């Protein structure tokens, strides 16, 4: 039964992205002229790709080289580090409380991700696998909030959190996540719709409640979509700057990495080497996550864009 599930669909999309060769391969010997033409065009595409790859990589290269320079050298015109100061990566921990900021950021990102997944799965389920009056209208409402710029709600939200005395605590950045997130609901709903209705019917015949169908049938099948939602939320909260700027700026014990990065700026100059070393450590978890879950990322982005 699993093999017929939606996982195969997504797998197919992915296979399509990974290899474009299927239609290119023609099983017959090619004339020499044609072979030469293909070789030339292959060299042309690869050189174009390599040049543009270098352009995309260059900023990262400069970040890395600067991160291992001395403070003095980072303020000169030299591009290559001399000497290499690997201890910069340790110095950051002494200069600012990098551990504290990492833990704060991690706490916000993890807890709000848990909240979004727990709260969005049931809503997406109700919007896709259950029939009730007003379902369509509710879905349109969810879509509408997707388009809503957050600036439209931010002032009263801030006022609410001031009244609750939640400013300078992590709560404003975590609690709302437990009430559902429009983007995640939308993505999960799109995925749930692809699960064949017969699966639910079979479970219903066996006397399963809607809750059981959701947790035992749909959620196991929807693991890739749930993983995508969790990744996107983690990443969003890890990278977020505006929220922490509003709610945490007055309490430097709760600062996130983003807020803390500006700490290297002193009155006279920016300590670029340490700033870049800390930036790299800020990017680190993102890069690791990406390589662990590259498929989920690519599928997820595709799912939101093409079928939106």
């Amino acid at each position: 039964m699993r093999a017929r599930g939606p996982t195969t669909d997504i797998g197919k999309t992915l296979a399509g992205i990974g290899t474009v060769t299927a239609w290119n391969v023609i099983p017959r010997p090619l004339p020499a002229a044609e072979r030469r033409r293909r070789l030339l065009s292959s060299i042309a595409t690869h050189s174009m790709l390599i040049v543009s790859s270098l352009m995309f990589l260059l900023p990262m290269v400069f970040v890395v080289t600067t991160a291992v320079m001395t403070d003095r050298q980072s303020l000169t015109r030299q591009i290559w580090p001399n000497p290499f100061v690997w201890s910069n990566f340790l110095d950051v921990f002494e200069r600012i409380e990098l551990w504290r900021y990492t833990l704060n950021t991690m706490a916000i990102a993890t807890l709000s991700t848990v909240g979004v997944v727990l709260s969005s799965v049931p809503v997406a389920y109700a919007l896709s696998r259950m029939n009730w009056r007003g379902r369509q209208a509710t879905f349109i409402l969810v879509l509408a909030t997707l388009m809503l710029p957050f600036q439209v709600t931010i002032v009263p939200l801030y006022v609410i959190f001031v009244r609750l005395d939640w400013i300078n605590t992590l709560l404003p950045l975590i609690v709302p996540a437990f009430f559902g997130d429009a983007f995640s609901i939308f993505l999960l709903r799109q995925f749930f719709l692809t699960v064949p209705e017969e699966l639910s019917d079979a479970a219903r015949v066996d006397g399963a409640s809607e809750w059981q169908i959701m947790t035992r049938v749909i959620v196991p099948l929807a693991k890739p979509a749930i993983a995508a939602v969790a990744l996107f939320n983690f990443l969003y909260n890890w990278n977020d700057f505006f929220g922490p700027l509003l709610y945490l700026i007055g309490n430097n014990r709760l600062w996130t990495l983003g807020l803390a990065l500006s700490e290297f700026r002193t009155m006279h100059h920016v300590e670029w080497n340490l700033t870049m070393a800390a930036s790299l450590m800020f990017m680190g978890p993102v890069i690791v996550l990406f390589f662990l879950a590259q498929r989920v990322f690519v599928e997820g982005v595709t799912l939101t864009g093409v079928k939106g």
Partner: protein
Amino acid sequence: MSPWVIGFLTFILYPMVATFYFSFTRYDLLSSPEWYGIQNYVYMFTKDPNFWVAVRNTIWIIAFGVPLQIVLSIITAWMLTKPRRGMKIYRTIFFMPSLAPPVAVALAFVFIFNPRTGPINVVLNKLGWEDPPLWFFTAQWSKPAMLILTLWGIGGTMIIFLAGLLDVPQQLYEAAEIEGATGWQKFRHVTLPTISPVIFFSLVTGVIYGFQFFTQAYVASITVSGSSTSQAATSVGAPNESLMFYSVYLWQQGWGNFRMGYASALAWMMFLVTMVCTLILVKTSRRWVHYAGGGFR
């Protein structure tokens, strides 16, 4: 459903209505809101020069940023469909930057584009340009530098276009070839119509995102002006208000100057403008967006 309903009421509906109400008041958070009629809106349009600066800057970044982002995404995605080997490596290289934390990206680009010691100008010097631009340090070049920064992160859009390009049915190309279509004709009459929904999607999200552009501009401005976090309210927009984008201005008015009423008015105006832009795009899209299934997908 019920947590979402509570969430929708407390975190979306009530705040929207409240923002609308606050936009007709003067409110500094300390005392209660004071009725101000339409004065916030009158001030915005007739007496506030900074509002128009923010609007112009935002239009600039959208007008250049969104089309460039779409064109470059299509080109990179199209290049990625070509090779038989190594596609995943290239895809990773193009995609990764879009995941990097905006704060880190902004700091990195301010450093790379440093007029005196940054690698970009060092290289430009070597290539014979004796007085290369001052980039983030001058109002004339700060927006182009910001544009380059945002274009570095086109990976997400590119991935969507890549999926769209790979979705184009091969029979269509073969049919076009039989008819004797040239490469450009195939692109114009086969590829473009098939990926037009993706173009439409990127246009709409690009315009909405343009109005929300904040973090990179904020970080770049306070870094070049060398101010501490407590002075941020006066230094955002630096140099010379050239990076004062709409959301940055909204933050400055609300959280720098504690003019919550005026910030609410700015937020509602932004909401209206993005809605109108989206509606215009939706209306015109019927003429150029082609849905393969015929209708909504």
